[in-house]
């Protein structure tokens, strides 16, 4: 119960904090609306925001049906990258051999533009969710590795000396000092990874053309339905905001225990 109220309180404070940002977004939309109307711009080139919101409402069923797989696949790719990227980060921190052998290769791998290999994933894993989650994972996992490694190494040397003076085991040092000290770094990495995972899924949807908001964007774009494209992008932003918000929510709850 306490956790539920804590989460609710955090959610409310997040919404309250969002006030100024919402104001700016509203102003931009207003300028956009006026500019389009005053200049009489062709809606195929740029429809006004009011038309986009109209399309969001009119197409809400199809947009929602396609937003759900996009969100779930992004979340799956993200979680996979947190687990495997975190484990790789721990391995790179603790094993000199792994660091020497793997770290340069991980960096090299990161230099491949992963969007370019998306068609290969489709060939290897098919056109269903497997390939989209895999692309999301491969884009999202690098920041997790980097932030885990820097977080685990950011521990205060004096705290390590204290634990050595207590004859603590490596396991105790990991769970009682290194991991809590690494959390701020890890959450920074997770925020970046969450947004990258969404990009990965959209790229996957472009390539596999099965379902999802990326598919809607591609399909409506090919038919010059600019309003629907923008409506899908708007829903995509909302999906991204919710997923990013989940990471921030987790951060606030956990840092309440592990913050200073």
């Amino acid at each position, binding site marked *: 119960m306490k956790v539920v109220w804590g989460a609710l309180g955090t959610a409310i404070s997040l919404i309250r904090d969002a006030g100024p940002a919402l104001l700016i977004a509203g102003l931009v939309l207003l300028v956009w609306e006026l500019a389009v109307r005053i200049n009489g711009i062709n809606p195929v080139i740029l429809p006004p925001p009011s038309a986009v919101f109209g399309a969001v409402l009119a197409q809400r069923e199809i947009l929602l049906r396609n937003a759900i797989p996009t969100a779930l696949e992004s979340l799956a790719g993200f979680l996979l990258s947190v687990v495997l990227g975190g484990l790789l980060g721990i391995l790179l921190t603790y094993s000199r051999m792994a660091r020497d052998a793997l770290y340069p290769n991980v960096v090299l791998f990161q230099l491949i533009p992963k969007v370019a290999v998306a068609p290969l994933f489709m060939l290897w894993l098919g056109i269903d969710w497997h390939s989209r989650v895999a692309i999301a994972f491969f884009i999202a996992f690098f920041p997790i590795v980097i932030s885990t490694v820097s977080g685990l190494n950011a521990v*205060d040397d004096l*705290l390590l000396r204290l634990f050595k003076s*207590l004859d*603590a085991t490596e396991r105790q040092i990991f769970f009682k000092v290194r991991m*809590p000290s690494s959390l701020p770094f890890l959450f920074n990495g997770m925020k970046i990874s969450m947004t990258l995972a969404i990009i990965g899924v959209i790229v996957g949807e472009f390539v596999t053309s099965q379902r999802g908001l990326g598919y809607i964007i591609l399909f409506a774009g090919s038919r010059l339905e600019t309003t629907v494209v923008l409506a899908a992008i708007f829903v995509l932003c909302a999906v991204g905001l919710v997923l990013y918000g989940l990471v921030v929510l987790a951060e606030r709850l956990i840092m309440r225990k592990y*913050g*200073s």
Partner: protein
Amino acid sequence: MQTLNDENGRDAFIQIDRVGKTYSGGNVHLEVLRDISLSAGKGQFVSLLGPSGCGKSSLLMMVAGLEPITAGEVHIGGQVVSKARRDVGVIFQDATLLPWKTALENVLLPIEVFGLPYGAYRDHAEALLSLVGLRQAMHKRPRQLSGGMKQRVAICRALIHDPAVLLMDEPFSALDAITRDDLNVELLRIWDKSHQTALFVTHSIREAAFLSDRVIVLGDRPGRIIADMSIPFSRPRDLRIGETVEFNRLCAELRDHVAVGHNEAA
């Protein structure tokens, strides 16, 4: 093994036997300590006094098992020191508290690490915190505590598991003079309860004289023993002994030894 007796005829509990320390890196060899032999009797409070860089902290860290000993041996209770021991409590210059734990949880950290029953030590931890005036603050986190309060928590943490030996590395040197005096008094009050064998590293002559049964003066480059003086004041002591002629005469004598150790090397 052979046990030495200190000058009061008590069994030596900490024995430092021809200990040296040389830091080696590539072609550079820096000898910071040479041929140090001293012993502290059970329950004795011994200060190591010397200028910065004389290796007194390195010596303490070797006794704590936190730094490799490059020559000689250290024995605690007859056993050779090769790593950190659980019958030793260490207070560092920095309080080094875990920022996400409360004062009480920080005090209980050794119990947690040793895997001892947490609940059984809780009363002891609260009693220790009360003894240093932190009963009200025991559920606060380090961020909410002053420097002096943090170091008080560190003292309690070093004593929670009733160690036989207390090792202190300039624990009050980062504090202001008034807080430092307070903590010296509180340290003695808490130490008087169980008389751990104590080694206290400091570069303050008055602090060494006030706290100790014995003050060992170290010279620098390389660190070696210049003098070994008994401090005869009865216990419990309070800060007023600092105003006595006898105390100031002792401090003057210590100051002369420190100056000799420093100038010889220079």
